[in-house]
C-alpha cells in the first residue's frame, strides 16, 4: 500500500456513460495500483481556499497508472456537478488513495458471488467484474442491478458483453420507475423475493457485496440475513442519499 498523500492526476479522457454519469479516466503519477472495490478521495479547492472532499469508487480494474472513476452528477451537489459537468480532458484533479479494504473483492476470494447495486452503487461492483474478466476467472457471479430506468443503467453494453462471454456471470435488472415496452424483467425495488430468485441459496455460502443509496443497502442486507445468509459474508457500502433508484 502506498503512502496516503494528496496528488495531482491528469484527466486523460471524459466519457459519458448515461445522461447523468460520466467516466473520468485519470493518469495518476506514481500510482501503485488498486484493488476492486476501493475508492479515492477527491478534493476540490475554491479560489477563496474553501475545500470540499468526496469519496468516489474506482470503476476500473487495476491498469498501470490509469484509474477510472464513474461520477453521477447530483444537481444539488457540491462536487459532482464540477466533476461530471465541467471537468475536461487535460485538466488536473487532486486526489488521494486508493483507500478502503473492507469492500474489496478479488478473484482469489472465490464465490459464488452475489453483487447487488443501486444506481451508481454499481461502480465498485463493476471494478470487481472487470477484474474477474481480466483474470479469466470463472467464479460464478450474479449481478442484481437496481436502476430507475434502462437509460440510467451505467455500463449496460459492457455488462451485456461480459454476460455473453459465458464464463458464469448473469446480470439482472430491476427497473424501479419506468420500463421499456415489452419489458419482462423486474419492475420494482429489490425485495426478499427477488433476492431469493436471483441470488444463491444460503447453503452455497455466497459472498455478497451490496452498494448504493443507504436505504437500498440496508434493506438488501437485512433481507439477505433474514433469508439465512451469514452476516459476515454480506459486505455493504452505503453511498448516502445519492440518487433514488
Amino acid at each position, binding site marked *: *500500500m*502506498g*503512502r*496516503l498523500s494528496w496528488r495531482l492526476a491528469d484527466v486523460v479522457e471524459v466519457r459519458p456513460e448515461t445522461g447523468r454519469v460520466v467516466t473520468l479516466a485519470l493518469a495518476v503519477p506514481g500510482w501503485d495500483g488498486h484493488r476492486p472495490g476501493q*475508492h479515492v*478521495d477527491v478534493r476540490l479547492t475554491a479560489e477563496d481556499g474553501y475545500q470540499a*472532499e468526496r*469519496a468516489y469508487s474506482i470503476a476500473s480494474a487495476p491498469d498501470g497508472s490509469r484509474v477510472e472513476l464513474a461520477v453521477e452528477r447530483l444537481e444539488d451537489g457540491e462536487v459532482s456537478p464540477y466533476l461530471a459537468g465541467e471537468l475536461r480532458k487535460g485538466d488536473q484533479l487532486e486526489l*488521494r*488513495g486508493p*483507500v*478502503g*479494504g*473492507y*469492500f474489496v473483492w478479488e478473484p482469489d476470494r472465490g464465490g459464488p458471488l452475489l453483487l447487488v447495486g443501486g444506481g451508481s452503487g454499481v461502480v465498485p461492483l463493476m471494478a470487481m467484474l472487470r477484474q474477474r474478466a481480466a483474470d479469466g476467472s470463472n467464479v460464478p457471479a450474479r449481478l442484481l442491478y437496481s436502476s430507475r430506468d434502462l437509460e440510467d443503467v451505467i455500463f449496460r453494453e459492457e455488462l451485456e458483453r461480459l454476460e455473453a462471454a459465458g464464463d458464469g456471470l448473469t446480470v439482472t435488472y430491476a427497473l424501479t420507475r419506468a420500463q421499456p415496452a415489452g419489458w419482462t424483467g423486474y419492475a420494482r425495488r429489490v425485495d426478499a423475493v427477488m433476492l431469493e430468485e436471483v441470488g444463491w441459496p444460503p447453503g452455497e455460502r455466497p459472498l455478497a457485496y451490496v452498494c448504493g*443509496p*443507504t*436505504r437500498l443497502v*440496508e434493506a438488501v442486507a437485512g433481507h439477505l440475513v433474514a433469508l439465512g445468509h451469514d452476516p459476515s459474508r454480506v*459486505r*455493504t*457500502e*452505503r*453511498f*448516502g*442519499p445519492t440518487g*433514488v433508484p
Partner: protein
Amino acid sequence: MTMDETDLRLDGNGVAGMLAEVFGFEMTVCWGCCAGCGASNQLGAMLVYAHGMGAVACCPACGQHLLRIARGEGRWWLDLRGLAWLQLDEQARMAG
C-alpha cells in the same frame, strides 16, 4: 421521499481516507470491539455520520458511539471511549 437520518448514514468505507490519514493504517479492515455490547466488527462495517468537521462512527450491532473524530485548527480530536479495544493489523499498515 423525505430525507432523514437514515439517508445520511454512511459506513466505515466512507471515512477510510480520514482514518488512514490519522492512524496510518487501512482501518476498514482492522477490528474493533464495542465497549457497550461487546460485538467485534471490522471498522468498514461501522455506521458513520459524517459532517464538515469529522465523523461519528457507531456500532453496527447496538448503535453505541465507538469513535468520534474531528479536525480543526491544525489538530485532530479523537474520542475512543466506545471502543473496548482496537486492533491494528500490520498487514493493513500504509507503507511510508
